[in-house]
């Protein structure tokens, strides 16, 4: 034990404390912002979900607000619509996977194709919704294609009918997700060691077997991430599309949870029920979110 280490010890302690202090100070603004604008509103939403609230004054009602809400058929319609839209998820993952595999063949000009495929990712879903409305419209592209195929007696108006409007929304959603998910899968494919596939081919494995046993397992983490991102987008990013394409209609045919919150709060002025619906959406996304945290956590 020399004197130098003895005298250095208290100095190192203060250095560490100073560093901790600096760290806490640096993190403080981010903490304040997240607490004030995300955490506190969650608490408020819980409180207000038990009240009659018009945004100005609230009166405590208690748990009966919840039983009332669950007796509201609109809530069940919205939840059903969300559940139906989940059917779009396999397409929103499968098509990008195929496109990524196509790009990964690196045919001449594949980089240009890549840029083209990703380009719609930059465009607002408001604009894509406008374009989709043109596509599905009575005098739109879809009917031109159908007539071009010789089926002149068939004319669709998917956004105009309760039975088909939600499917049209789902198709648009699949289109809007293609860019992002293709990008994810292509990044995943790029990290795959080509000699691995090569070796399997030498051993006589066919294309499908190589894909099934080497490529797909390698991509599994990317597919998981894409799945989580797609489901979260489905629950919380359709607002722009719905607002522009259908306004939630016809009837409540395209009213999802997030749109129901907006309508209940801002069209009907029932802030309390809207806050309650918000919490239901929060729980739904939290379930998906926990999966993603696991995903991130498994990496450390």
């Amino acid at each position, binding site marked *: 034990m020399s004197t130098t280490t003895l005298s250095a010890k208290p100095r190192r302690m203060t250095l560490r404390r100073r560093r901790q202090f600096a760290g806490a100070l640096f993190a403080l603004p981010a903490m304040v912002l997240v607490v004030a604008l995300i955490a506190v509103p969650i608490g408020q939403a819980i409180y207000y979900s038990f009240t009659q609230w018009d945004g100005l004054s609230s009166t405590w009602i208690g748990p009966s607000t919840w039983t009332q809400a669950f007796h509201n058929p609109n809530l069940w319609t919205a939840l059903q619509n969300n559940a139906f839209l989940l059917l779009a998820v396999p397409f929103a993952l499968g098509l990008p996977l195929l496109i990524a595999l196509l790009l990964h063949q690196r045919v001449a000009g594949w980089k240009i194709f890549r840029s083209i495929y990703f380009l719609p990712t930059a465009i607002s879903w408001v604009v894509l919704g406008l374009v989709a409305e*043109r596509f599905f419209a009575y005098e739109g592209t879809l009917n031109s294609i159908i007539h071009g195929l010789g089926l002149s007696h068939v004319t669709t108006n998917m956004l105009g009918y309760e039975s088909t409007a939600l499917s049209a929304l789902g198709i648009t959603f699949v289109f809007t997700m293609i860019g992002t998910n293709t990008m994810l899968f292509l990044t995943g494919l790029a990290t795959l060691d080509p000699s691995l596939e090569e070796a399997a081919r030498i051993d006589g494995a066919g294309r499908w077997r190589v894909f099934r046993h080497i490529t797909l397992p390698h991509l599994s983490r990317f597919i998981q991430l894409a799945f989580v991102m797609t489901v979260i987008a489905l629950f919380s990013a359709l607002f722009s599309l719905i607002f522009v394409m259908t306004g939630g209609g016809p009837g409540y045919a395209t009213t999802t949870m997030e749109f129901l919150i907006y309508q209940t709060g801002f069209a009907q002025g029932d802030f309390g029920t809207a806050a309650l619906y918000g919490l239901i959406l929060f729980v739904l996304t939290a379930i998906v979110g926990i999966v993603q945290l696991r995903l991130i956590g498994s990496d450390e």
Partner: protein
Amino acid sequence: MSITDTERTSESAGPVATRSRGRRVRRGALFVLMGAVAIVMLYPFWVMVVDSLKSQNQFLAGHGFSWSSWRTLTSTIPIVQEVISSTIICAVSIALILAVGLPAGFAFAKLRFRASSVIFLAIVSAMMVPLQAILMPEFVNITRLGLTGGYTGAVLVYAALGTPFSVFLFATYFRGVPDELIEAGIVDGLGYVGALWRLVVPIAIPAIATVTVLQFIQIWDDLLVGLLFIQNTSERPITVGLAVLAAGRTTSIPALMAGSLVSALPAMAVYLIFQRYLVKGLTMGIDR
């Protein structure tokens, strides 16, 4: 890969010539397939360009060509003012997100303090909270503070929504930076703020670019926040302006398409120039 592939198969099967022709046919088929996908992905641009180059009457008739909706665009849609609004909102929000996220990410990675990992996890979890879930209290709070007139309220909400991801991304990024580098700077008398400004920021340029690009596209393209938190129509961003006109169903489609194209161009330009940062940001956390 291609050379060995041909050689190997040529041993077992027919002559090299037929094999390579088979390959060429296959490549050709792939090319055609990729072209078909490209047409689908370019469809929105085609619609915007073609429909905007019609007058309202030509649009209804289904044929014809005219510049009229472009000529009258500024009087149909207050597009100049809306683009300026969008730019201001994006710039201030991103500046705030960086100013708050960068030091926090640095702190969580390199200047760990008591409970810092729990707080970090809490902030990252906030990434999963959709705005709609807290929309009502958020709206009432911002309204009570009197911030729903101009940009301030929207900027605050965008900043809060963007902060969790940026903290996560910066912290992940800084974990890859050796401790010694930071230590040396601090010992050299830079102090913590000095080290942050002179050492950390220059290192973090790629991460800053990723956050900026992702947030720019996110905020520029957003509807919900701008729609509810900016009540003055004179300060409306472009995406909100388009959505409101479209939902009103009185504005002509050609004018809307021209406006859409104008709104899409900046985000597309940013996207094409900074494509690689976008990819990096999306796969952050699983691909390091």
